[in-house]
Structure formats: structure tokens, C-alpha cells
């Protein structure tokens, strides 16, 4: 059996799955239940200045019949008394000495930071996570993302914490910034032990069409909130990668954002995370999802021959290049597996209207045909095709040549003028604009009109 345990910047945990600082870690009761269920660690719901929450706090994004592909909240940090939280931290640690309990903190002054770090340290926390990410409510008071967006302020506060911290310090980063590596570098300069990312993304998840108010609605009004859930994973992955690839950051990364199953976790790990944190999925499905996550991760490790998590932390990083370093001689072409095709023609309309007019329809069959000369290998058709492995992208270059944009620029073979002969699309066939008019009108008219203009003739109206 592979070893799932981790030592994250000195914080030990039986597996890499931590609950992120959020409602699931609001109390000792919940955290004990989670550890009982199999979670490796928990970042306590952020402790700090006293707050009051509003009623009606969450909004969701549904996609067709799928609920909560995106999730948004306007909640603040813990509204429970600090003393209660500290007492429960102690109790949890006593009962689960080998699990990771991390205190998430957010206060204002140097003195406050010193006090709260000492108090949670005394309560037995294994480490700290400094919340510089909350994008609503706290930033207006000069905390949360207001700090995360100002690398200088962030650095100063981390330095205050480092003055008293005897346990590892993780800095949690906000994604509401154009270059995530700047605050990460500030954390590094201040001596932080690790970073975690991403916190929620500033958002409005939707607008009520009858009340003319954004969700969630508080007495007819709303405000921007923080976005998370499956929809944010791609943004999180990119930011994790940016921090992991940066030559000077060199800090352990706790990956957060859109993790719901073992695959999501593995993706974060392959891009450089060495622990992962989960919030929305636990809020949606409860703590029980941990069983699928650990079993999936274990199975994957067995299949790949990985003994520990560290065997694959950052394993995908060497394959994430700058665009200019990609091989422009590589060529793929779409290929339709006729035996699998169900004739929905989504690929046809996608390529015809949304890509490169490289798919045609033939009389007598619903199976479309790829016009190989026109196919630029964009993948669109294979992405819209509803049948698994029906459209495959086949390599069509001879795999012997390698030429990047950078090399072309250096060699002086890159196009430089607006009408340059060397431009990529120069020799790509495009139909005449007017050829579009009336094309397939009989197929795209409303059904009834389609029939009338097809086999049967519509009697002329007077």
C-alpha cells in the first residue's frame, strides 16, 4: 500500500486531504467528525476580530441539471467567541494528536497578531494559516484581500507573525490580483513556511430576474461575494502552477480550489501542491466524500507505482511551458470513428460556425466528414462530440521536426508585417462571405417551416 502521509512544511498529516477554513471547520464537533470520517487535517474557520454575519449568505451556479458547479458566499470569519474555538482546538488535538489542526487567523494590529498567534499556539495548533484572501466584508476593514493585494503590507504582517510563531506559518493568497507570484514572493521574503491558494474569487453568481437583485439576496439587496467550487479549479490550477514554477518562491504549496474528487486533487499535486484543501465539496456532499478521495488516490498511486505523495508532487511542471516554446511542427487532425458516430452533427455545426469550416455533410448519411486540408487541429469537434472516443485527434506530422515561435523569432522566420506571407492563416481556405447566405436554411429554420420548405410546398398566401 502506498503511503499517503505528508509532512507539509513541518505539519504532519496522515493524508494530504485537509478541510479548508470554512463552515465545515467551524467547530470542534465538525472537525472531530471529519477526522473520524478519514480527513487528514483541518484548517479551523478563521479566528479573529469579532464579526456579525447576515442571513442569506450563499448563492449557487447551476449548469442545466447540475447543482452548484459554482458556489458563492458573503460570509465573514468565525462569529464564535475566540475562547470557545481555542478550547475546542485543544480538545480536538488531544483526541487526534496525529491529525493536522491549523489555526486560520485574521486580525489587524501587530499586538492583535501576536496575541492570537500565541493563544492558538498554546491551544495546541500544529500551524497557522494567515487569511489574506477573503474578498468581501473583511477587506473593507483593511483585512483579508485588502492585505493580500498589497505585497508590502502582506510582508509586514507576516513578519509580525514570524516574531512570535513557533509553529509553521502558511500564507493564504487571494486570486483577486493580476500576478499571484507577487504576494507569494512577499510571503517568502517575510519568512513564511508555506503558501496556500486560492481563496475565493470576487464574484456575482447571478441576478434574480424578478427582484432585480444579485444573489444571495439580503432583504432585496445583494453584494459581491467570493466564488469557489468546481468552476474555479482551472483558475486555481494555473495559479498553483505559477507559484510552483517560480524560481524564487520555493515554498510548499497547499492547493485549494474546485477539488471534489481524487482526480482534482491529483491535478493540484501534479502542478506542485503537496497538500490539498476542500471546502465546497464537503459543504455539498458532507465529509463522506473523503472515502472516495483516499481510495482513488491510493489506486492511482498503485497503478503508477508511486510510493509517496512526493513521488509526483509537481510531476507535470516540466511539461507546462510558455506558449513560445511549444512545437509548431506538431500537427493533429480530427478523425471521426464512423462506427461510434450517432449522427448528432454537433461537430459539424461547431466547426462550421465556431471554427474552421473543416467538416462537411454528405447526402444519404448523418455521419459528417472531416475535410483534412482545412482542419487546423483545434480539438473543438472532439470536445463537443457526445460519444466517448468517437472523434480522436490523430497526429499527422511525421514527428521528426521541432520548431518553436521563439526559435522562429531568433532565426528571423517569424511573420512581422500585417500582410506577411509567413502568417499562419494566410493559406488556409475560407469560404467567400456570401456563400453563407441561405446555406442550410432548410435545416435551421423552425421545424414546421423546415418541413414546409422541404418535401411539401407551402401554399402561397394571398
Amino acid at each position, binding site marked *: 500500500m502506498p503511503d499517503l502521509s505528508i509532512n507539509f512544511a513541518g505539519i504532519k498529516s496522515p493524508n494530504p486531504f485537509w478541510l479548508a477554513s470554512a463552515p465545515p471547520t467551524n467547530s470542534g464537533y465538525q472537525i472531530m467528525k471529519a477526522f473520524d470520517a478519514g480527513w487528514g487535517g483541518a484548517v479551523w474557520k478563521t479566528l479573529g476580530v469579532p464579526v456579525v454575519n447576515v442571513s442569506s449568505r450563499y448563492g449557487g451556479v447551476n449548469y*442545466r*441539471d*447540475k447543482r452548484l458547479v459554482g458556489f458563492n458566499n458573503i460570509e465573514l470569519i468565525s462569529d464564535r467567541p475566540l475562547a470557545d474555538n481555542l478550547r475546542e482546538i485543544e480538545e480536538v488535538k488531544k483526541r487526534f494528536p496525529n491529525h493536522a489542526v491549523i489555526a486560520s487567523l485574521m486580525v489587524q494590529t501587530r499586538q492583535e497578531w501576536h496575541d492570537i498567534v500565541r493563544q492558538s499556539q498554546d491551544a495546541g495548533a500544529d500551524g497557522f494559516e494567515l487569511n489574506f484572501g477573503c474578498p468581501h466584508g473583511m477587506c473593507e476593514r483593511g483585512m483579508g484581500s485588502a492585505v493580500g493585494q498589497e505585497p508590502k503590507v502582506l510582508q509586514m504582517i507576516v513578519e509580525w507573525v514570524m516574531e512570535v510563531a513557533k509553529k509553521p506559518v502558511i500564507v493564504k493568497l487571494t486570486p483577486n490580483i493580476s500576478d499571484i507570484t507577487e504576494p507569494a514572493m512577499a510571503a517568502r521574503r517575510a519568512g513564511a513556511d508555506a503558501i496556500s491558494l486560492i481563496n475565493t474569487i470576487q464574484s456575482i453568481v447571478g441576478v434574480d430576474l424578478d427582484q432585480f437583485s444579485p444573489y444571495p439576496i439580503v432583504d432585496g439587496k445583494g453584494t459581491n461575494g467570493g466564488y469557489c467550487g468546481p468552476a474555479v479549479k482551472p483558475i486555481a490550477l494555473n495559479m498553483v502552477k505559477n507559484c510552483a514554477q517560480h524560481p524564487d518562491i520555493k515554498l510548499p504549496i497547499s492547493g485549494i480550489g474546485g477539488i471534489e474528487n481524487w482526480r482534482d486533487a491529483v491535478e493540484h499535486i501534479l502542478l506542485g501542491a503537496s497538500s490539498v484543501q476542500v471546502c465546497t465539496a464537503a459543504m455539498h456532499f458532507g465529509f463522506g466524500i473523503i472515502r472516495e478521495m483516499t481510495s482513488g488516490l491510493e489506486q492511482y498511486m498503485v497503478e503508477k507505482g508511486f510510493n509517496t505523495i512526493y513521488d509526483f508532487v509537481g510531476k507535470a511542471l516540466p511539461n507546462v511551458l510558455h506558449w513560445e516554446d511549444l512545437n509548431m511542427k506538431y500537427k493533429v487532425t480530427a478523425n471521426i470513428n464512423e462506427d461510434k*458516430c*450517432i*449522427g*448528432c*452533427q*454537433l461537430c*459539424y*455545426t461547431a466547426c462550421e460556425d465556431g471554427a474552421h469550416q473543416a467538416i462537411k455533410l454528405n447526402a444519404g448519411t*448523418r455521419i459528417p466528414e472531416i475535410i483534412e486540408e482545412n482542419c487546423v487541429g483545434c480539438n473543438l469537434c472532439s470536445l463537443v462530440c*457526445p*460519444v466517448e472516443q468517437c472523434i480522436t485527434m490523430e497526429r499527422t506530422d511525421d514527428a521528426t521536426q521541432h520548431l518553436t515561435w521563439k526559435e522562429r523569432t531568433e532565426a528571423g522566420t517569424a511573420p512581422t508585417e500585417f500582410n506577411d506571407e509567413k502568417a499562419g492563416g494566410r493559406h488556409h481556405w475560407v469560404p467567400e462571405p456570401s456563400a453563407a447566405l441561405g446555406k*442550410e436554411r432548410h*435545416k*435551421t429554420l*423552425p*421545424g*414546421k417551416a*423546415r*418541413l*414546409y420548405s422541404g418535401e*411539401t*410546398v*407551402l*401554399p*402561397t*398566401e*394571398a
Partner: protein
Amino acid sequence: MAEFSTPTTEQQFAENFAQLKPVMNRTEALYESSRCLFCFDAPCIKACPSGIDIPQFIRQINSGNDTGAARTIYEANYFGNACGKVCPTEVLCEGACVYNLQEVKPIEIGRLQSFATTKVIKNGEKLFGPGADNGKKVAVIGAGPAGISAACELRSLGYDVDVFEAKAQPSGLTVYGVAPYKITNEETLAEMAYLQSQFGYNVHFNSAISSREELEKLENKYDAIFLGIGLGKTNELGLPGEDKINCTGAVEFIAELREFQHKVAVGRKVIVLGGGNTAMDAASESSRLGAENVILAYRRAKEEMGAYEFEYDLAKGVGVKGLFNVAPVEITGNGYVAGVKFIRTETKDGKVSEIAGSEFVEPCDMVIKATGQAKQTEFLSLIPGLKLDGKGRIIANAHTGQTSNPKYFASGDAWNGGAEVVNAAAEAKLTARGIHAYLSK
């Protein structure tokens, strides 16, 4: 053992005849509509005789625009709600859904269709109205799917429309013929009331047009006459003993069933003669009425039956037994039906022949003849110049529905020889436009 106990109350009848396609709730509609791929040039549309823009209305349901969905449906088919429930979707839209090729359950198009239309009917949402009065009048004979659809379309084109119906209720065989587990009387009549309230045509019930004088009156008073008279009674078999008590035609039996429901008595052992969809319906219905034994007797082999496979499966599912390659020669009994004398047959090179000396009597106490509906040739002969084809079907222009008597137009079973509700509805809409083109000349 009977599959069903004899229903004695309305409640028990509803249970025995539970809807095969119950109306979806919003959650189910959301889930199901989410699966639709929104195919390009969708095959389901082409398989729908009324050409409903199926991916469009499913997308409308999915985005919460149920009213728009109902409008899309009704724009193509005035029997939108009924069709969603009674269409043989397995061989039409759903049979053409691309998911079949992926061995995934096709989209439940029919139920989605009824979902959207039920909602507007329940809420009485006005989607259509009559067009500006054009001063012309059209008479419609028959308030079946064909007649009512023609009336709606003609009203929307501004005609004054009078519908003459022999029976007491509108919708024709939808309420007097279709199996009760496909659609309830209430559902059928609610859609009829919904259409009438929007289009405002006049229906004269219990007003059969049956004489030359009556026709002449119509010819004088109206600019055009639409024939939506459907088919007639069950064909006679010409067998000895056919007049015995409890030997009945399927269409007549079913009409009674639809009207009197649990008050209709069925035999203990029923023999249904025929191999078409009506035979399957009559057999299923007998079983659901509590008959202990129901035998479906057909002249040819099982594979040669005209009925859709799913209709036969449905009958088998409620305990109906098939008896194949048998031809009835006599209905036996003394006043009452006591059995059917059959002779065995064999099919060679597509021809059935009887096997001499193979007669036997199958005892029963009820015989239902599902041997096809006769054409209304006698009535049609009253219309001057009206031509029928060799099978007694009205001959009319495929695009305009105009008959050989230019004042008369036809659609539905009387013209196509007997098809489905959806065909009648689609044809009548087209024919109404044909009438409009003719009267606008």
C-alpha cells in the same frame, strides 16, 4: 388468474388504467431536458409528422421558458398535449433520437411535450388568438383531430368557422378510441377547451351531417367545407354467429369504455380477433377491465402482425396470450357467445392458406372484432364529384387537401385511410392553408 381485478369505482379504474406517460414534474423535466444534445438538423424533427421543433422546445424547457416551449409545440401541432401522450413516439421522434445509436435511452420527447403544454393549459395561458375577420366562412364536419386542427388554423387566418360533430364531445377518437392508459378524458377535453377558448370557433355537438339536404345547406352557406370525418364502424366479418350477444366491434367497445369507464362489463374469457394496434389496445383493455383470460387470435404468424412491437409487448405485459395462424370460421353459442371456431392456417410465400380438417373451438364469453374500420363511403357518395380511391379513401391534393369537388377539402383518417392523431393534426393544418390559398385567389 386475472392480472387485474375488475374495477368498480372511478379510483380503481384509474389505477388499472394508470397513465403510461404520466406528466412530468419540473424537476424531471429539467433532468430530461438537460440530456438533449440540441442536434444539428435534428432527426427527431424529421420523424415528427407535424415537424415540431423538438430541440428548440426542449431547450426552452431547460432554460425555464415553459410557455415559449408550449408555443413552439402549438405552432406546429394543435394537439400538442394529446400527441405527447398518445403518439407512438417509439416509432416517431423518440425512435429517431440519436441516443438510440449510442444505446442510451432516447429523450422522452413525448412527456416533455406534455409537460410544457399541460402547464399552459392548466394556467389558461393565452398564446394564440383569431386573425382579423376576413368575412369568409368555412364549415368543418367532424370535431376530431383533423377537424379541430383545421378550425384553429382557419380561425387564425380570420375565417368564421362552424364545426359539426355527430357526437357529444370533441377530439374524435382521441376521447372515443385511444386507450385510456395513454390519455385521460379530462386531459383530452381540457386541451379542447383550451383551444376553443383561444380561437373561438363554434362547435355544434350531436349534429351529424347525414343527408344531401344538410350538405346542400352547408354548400350554400359556407365558402368551403372541410371533411374531418375519420373512419366508420368496425368491418363486418361475414361469419355465421357474428350477431350473437357479446360479439362486438373493437371501436365500439372502446368508445363505450372511454365513455362509461368502470361501468363497462367485460367477459371472463375474451377473444380478440385481429393483429393491428386496435386489437392490441382492445386486448390490453379487456385485461385491465378484469377479464381472466384474454386471447389475441390472428390469422397469420406473430411476425406478420401490423401492430407495433411495443404495443404487442404492452398487451403481453398485462397477461394477453397470443394465438397465431388461426382464422375464425364461426362464432358459436346459443344467443350468447360461447366460443369461436377456428381453422389453423399456414403462410407460404406470403399467402395464407387454411389447413383442412384443423378446426377447433376455443371457448369464450366475449368476442371483440378488431378487424379494421370501414370507410364512410355511403356518406361521401352524397358529395357531388367527390372521388375516392380503390380503398375508399378521399382523393385530395397532397399539399392543399383539396378534393375533386373544389369546395371540399379533407384531412385525417378519411383521407389517409387511418393513421395517428399527429398525422390528422399535421395534415389539417396544411389543408387549412390550402383552403386559405383557394379562397384568397
